[in-house]
C-alpha cells in the first residue's frame, strides 16, 4: 500500500518500528534471555521427545482441521461471491454472518460443543449417535472446522468481489466448463486471499487452546499451547520448557504464512498469472429479480449455519445477575475499543510501511503485479513475514515476556489497562494485518495517478479512489478485533486487578464459586456483545459492494 506521501510513510514506519520493538522483540527477547541463561536452548533440548510427540499431535490436528476447512471454505466463499447473481445487501449480510464466528468467545464455543456433542447433548438423542465423538480428537477437529470454514470463506468472498465477470461470461460463451473458468479466471484472483486464510486457520488450529482443553479429553489430544500452559501457569515456572514449546509453535504456525508470502512475491516479481484487479466490485446487471432474490436469500442462510449452533447458549441468559456486571462490562468495552483501534491502525501502518519497501510497479498494471523485472526487493516479503510473527507466538509467552521486560516500570500486581490493551493489540494485529493485506495488494495505482494528473490533491485522490475500497475492510477488521477482544481471557489475566476485571475473567471467577448458571448466562451475554459489536460496526458497510 503506497501513499506517495513521505510524511505519512515515515510516520507509519516509525509507528510499526516502535510497536515491533516494544511489543514483540523486547518481550520475546526477555523470555528467550531467561531461558538461555539456564543454558537449555541447545539442539538436544530442542529435540526433546515429549515436546516432539506433542508437536506431532499439534501438526496432525492442525493439518486435518485446516485441510477440511479449506476444502469447504473455498467453494463456499466462491459461491457467496459469485458474480451475476448479486442482490446487494444480501451478499453483504452473508459476509457479515461469515465473520461472526470469529468473535465467538472460546468459552462459548466450548459450551456449545459440549451441549451438542456431550452425553446429554442435542445430538445424543439421535438414533445411532455415538457419544464417543465428544471429548476426543474428532470433537476437536469438528469444532475447528465449523469455526474456521467461515473465516476462509470470508477471505475468498472478499477477494471474489473483484472477479472479472466479463471474462467469466466470455469464457463460458467460448465453451469453458466450470473447472476451466475457475482455473483461468477465478483462482488467480482469489488464491492469495485463500492461501492467506488457510495460513491463518492453520495458525489458529495449531495454537488452539480452550477447545482442545474442553473437548480433547486430555492426553494424548493436546497442543503445544496446552503444554505451554501447564509449564507457565502451574507451579514454579518452567521457562525453558515453555520456550521450547513456544519455539516449535512459532515454527509450525509461521511456516505456511512465510510460504504464502514467498510465492506471492515471486509471482508478483515475474508479473505472470495475475489478473488486473477491477477498480470496483462487480454489480449485478440484468439478472432476473426473482432469481436474484432467491439465491441472494440463500447465501445469508447458509452463512448463518456456522453461527447458529452457538445460539444454543442464549437459553441460559435468564440467570444473568444484571446488577453485578456493570463494571466488568465497562472494562470489556473499553478494552475492546482500544485493542481494535490499536490493532487496525498498526496493521494499516504496517501495510504502508511494506508498501514503501516494495519497488515501484510499472504504471498501467494496477493490482500490485510488479512489473519491475530487474529484481524485486526482498524487504517487503521479509517484512510481511516478520510482522506476522505475533500470530505464531503464544499469548502466554508474550504476556510473560511483557511481565519480565516491563515489570520494573509497570507494577503487574497493580494491574494495567494499557498493558492489557498493548497485549491484545499485539495478539490481534496479525489478524487485522492479514485481513487487510489482500486489499492493500489491489491498489489502483493507475487510477491514483490519473486522478493526480487531473489535478486532484492526494487527499481527494485517496478519498475518491481508495477510500471506498478500504472503508468496508477497515470497519470489518475493527469489528473482528473488537468482537474477539471481548471474549479474550489469556491476555487480560496477566494485568488485571480487582478494579479491572473484564467479563471473561468474571465468568472464570464465578465458576470457581459454584455460580455456574450465572457464569453460563454471562457467557451468553458475551456472545451477544461480540455479535452486536461486529454487527454495529459492519452494518454501515453492508450493501456497499455487490
Amino acid at each position: 500500500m503506497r501513499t506517495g506521501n513521505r510524511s505519512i510513510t515515515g510516520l507509519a514506519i516509525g509507528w510499526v518500528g516502535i510497536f515491533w520493538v516494544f511489543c514483540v522483540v523486547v518481550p520475546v527477547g526477555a523470555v528467550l534471555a531467561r531461558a538461555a541463561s539456564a543454558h537449555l536452548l541447545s539442539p538436544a533440548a530442542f529435540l526433546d521427545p515429549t515436546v516432539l510427540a506433542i508437536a506431532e499431535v499439534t501438526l496432525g490436528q492442525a493439518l486435518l482441521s485446516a485441510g477440511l476447512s479449506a476444502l469447504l471454505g473455498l467453494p463456499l466463499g466462491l459461491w457467496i461471491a459469485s458474480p451475476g447473481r448479486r442482490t446487494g445487501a444480501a451478499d453483504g449480510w452473508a459476509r457479515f454472518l461469515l465473520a461472526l464466528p470469529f468473535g465467538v468467545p472460546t468459552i462459548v464455543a466450548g459450551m456449545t460443543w459440549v451441549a451438542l456433542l456431550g452425553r446429554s447433548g442435542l445430538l445424543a438423542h439421535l438414533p445411532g449417535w455415538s457419544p464417543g465423538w465428544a471429548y476426543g480428537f474428532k470433537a476437536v477437529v469438528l469444532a475447528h472446522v465449523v469455526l474456521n470454514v467461515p473465516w476462509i470463506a470470508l477471505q475468498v468472498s472478499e477477494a471474489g468481489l473483484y472477479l472479472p465477470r466479463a471474462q467469466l461470461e466470455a469464457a463460458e460463451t467460448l465453451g469453458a466448463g466450470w473447472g476451466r473458468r475457475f482455473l483461468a479466471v477465478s483462482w488467480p484472483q482469489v488464491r492469495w486471499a485463500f492461501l492467506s486464510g488457510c495460513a491463518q486457520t492453520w495458525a489458529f488450529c495449531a495454537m488452539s487452546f480452550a477447545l482442545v482443553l474442553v473437548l480433547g479429553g486430555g492426553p494424548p489430544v493436546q497442543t503445544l499451547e496446552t503444554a505451554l500452559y501447564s509449564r507457565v501457569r502451574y507451579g514454579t515456572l518452567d521457562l525453558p520448557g515453555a520456550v521450547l514449546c513456544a519455539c516449535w509453535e512459532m515454527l509450525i504456525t509461521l511456516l505456511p504464512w512465510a510460504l504464502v508470502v514467498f510465492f506471492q512475491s515471486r509471482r508478483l516479481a515475474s508479473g505472470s498469472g495475475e489478473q488486473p484487479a477491477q477498480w470496483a466490485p462487480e454489480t449485478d446487471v440484468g439478472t432476473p429479480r426473482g432469481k436474484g432474490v432467491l439465491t441472494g436469500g440463500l447465501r445469508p442462510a447458509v452463512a448463518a449455519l456456522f453461527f447458529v449452533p452457538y445460539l444454543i447458549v442464549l437459553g441460559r441468559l435468564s440467570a444473568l445477575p444484571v446488577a453485578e456486571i456493570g463494571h466488568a462490562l465497562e472494562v470489556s468495552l473499553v478494552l475492546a475499543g482500544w485493542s481494535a483501534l490499536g490493532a487496525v491502525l498498526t496493521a494499516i501502518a504496517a501495510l504502508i510501511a511494506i508498501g514503501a519497501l516494495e519497488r515501484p510497479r510499472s504504471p498501467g498494471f494496477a493490482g500490485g503485479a510488479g512489473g519491475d523485472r530487474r529484481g524485486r526487493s526482498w524487504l517487503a516479503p521479509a517484512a510481511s513475514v516478520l510482522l506476522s510473527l505475533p500470530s505464531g507466538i503464544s499469548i502466554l509467552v508474550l504476556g510473560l515476556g511483557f511481565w519480565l521486560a516491563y515489570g520494573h516500570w509497570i507494577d503487574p500486581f497493580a494491574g494495567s489497562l494499557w498493558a492489557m490493551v498493548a497485549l491484545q493489540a499485539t495478539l490481534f494485529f496479525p489478524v487485522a494485518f492479514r485481513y487487510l493485506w489482500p486489499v492493500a495488494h489491489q491498489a489502483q495505482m493507475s487510477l491514483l495517478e490519473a486522478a493526480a494528473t487531473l489535478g486532484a490533491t492526494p487527499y481527494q485522490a485517496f478519498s475518491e479512489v481508495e477510500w471506498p475500497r478500504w472503508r468496508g475492510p477497515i470497519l470489518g477488521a475493527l469489528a473482528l478485533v473488537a468482537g474477539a477482544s471481548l471474549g479474550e481471557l489469556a491476555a487480560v489475566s496477566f494485568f488485571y486487578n480487582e478494579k479491572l476485571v473484564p467479563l471473561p475473567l468474571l465468568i472464570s471467577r464465578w465458576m470457581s464459586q459454584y455460580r455456574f448458571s450465572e457464569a453460563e448466562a454471562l457467557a451468553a451475554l458475551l456472545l451477544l456483545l461480540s455479535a452486536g459489536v461486529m454487527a454495529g460496526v459492519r452494518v454501515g458497510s453492508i450493501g456497499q459492494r455487490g
Partner: protein
Amino acid sequence: MRRRALVAFLSVATVSGLVALTARLDGWFRWTRGSATPGGLVGDRRQELVVYTYDGFVAKGGLGPEIFPLFEKRCDCRVRALPVGDGQQILARLQLDFERGTPVAQVVIGLDQPAFNRARPWLKRWGGWRPSAWRRIRREVRPDGAGEDGGSDGGGDGDKDGFLPYDYGFFAFMADTRHLARQAGTSAGALSGMPPPAFPRSFRDLLGPSWKRGLLLEDPRTSTPGLAFVLYADAIQTRALTGESAAKKTPDLRAFWRGFRGQWLTLAPGWDQAYGLFLGEQAPLVWSYTTSQAYHEEHGDLTHRYRAVLFDEGQPIQVEGAALIRGSESVLARRFLDFLLSREVQERIPLHSWMYPVREATTLPASFEHLPYPKKVIHLPSDPATIAAALRRWSGGVEGG
C-alpha cells in the same frame, strides 16, 4: 453527503465515548488504588498490609470481603488484597517478585501443602514464634501434629515452619444420584434415601466397566485437585502392592494409568470446568471436595441429589494455609496470621470458602454437620521430587498409549 456526515458523527461519538469511559476507569482505579475495601481514601496514612491471594478469596462472596474489614477495624490499618489467579499461579508470582528483588506483599494466603513446599525459598520461617491460637488448631492438620496415618502434611514441623493452616477439606468424588438412577433405571428417590448401592465403595470399583467414561477429572498439570487425584491413586496402588511386587511399583503404576485412561470422560483444565460439566450431566462422578455437598444443600438441594462418595481406602486431605513472605515481613503481618485463627474468621470459613475451619470447636452450619467425614485420612506427599515422579508416571501412562 448526509451519509458521510452521519458516519463521521458516529465515529467521533464512538471515539469520544471510548475516551470518556477510559478516563472514568482510570480515575476510578487511581481513586481506589491501595484499598481492599470500598471507599478507601487517597492520602490514607494508616499502615498498610498487602496480601497475595487467589481470585476466589477476594471475589464477592469469598472470604476476603468478609474478614478484611474486620481486620482493618481491629488494627486500624488498611489491607490491600492482590488477587493473582488461582492457588498455583501464586507460586509464579512469588518467584517473579523475588527475582525482581522488590517484594510487594507481606502475606500470602491460599497455599496448600505442595505449593508451600515449592514456595519455601520465598517464604519466611517463624523460628520460635507461633500464633497465639496455634494449639487450638485441629491436631490432624497442624504441622507439628500427626495425622491418621502418622503423616502430617509432608512430615515434621521443621518442613512446615512458617505454614499457618486456616482451613481444610477432603477430596472426594461427588455423585449425581439422578444421573446414576437414570443409568441404573431406578428412581432417584430410592437411591437418595438409603445407602446408595450404585455408588462406588472403593477406589478399585472405579476400574470396573460400569464406570467406563463415567468420571470427570482434572488435569494434574494444571489443577490442584487433579494433582491430588494422581497422588491419591499412586498412594492407594502403592499400598496395595506387597512383597515382590513392591519392587516393581513404578512399571505397575504406569500400567495402572494406561488402564485407567479409559475410565474418565475428560480431563478438565480446572475444577470449575470439571464441575460445570458435572452439573451439565456429562458424567455421574466428578472429582471435587466433600464440602460440595454442603454447597448444594445450602442452595436448595433438599432431595440430596448431589452426594459426596467416600472410599474404603480413605480420602486425601487438603490443608490451605497462609505464610509470611521473605524480605517484607512486618508486625502487622504476624497479627494478621493471628487473626486468621480467630473465631471471627474461622466461623465464616464454611459458608465462604466451602472448607472446614481448622480451629477446634468452631460451630459448623447444619449442612456441614450432614457431611460424611472420612474415617481414614490420607496425607498426600508434598515434596516436589515425589510429585514430579508421580506426574512423570502419569504422563508416561496416559500419553504413551
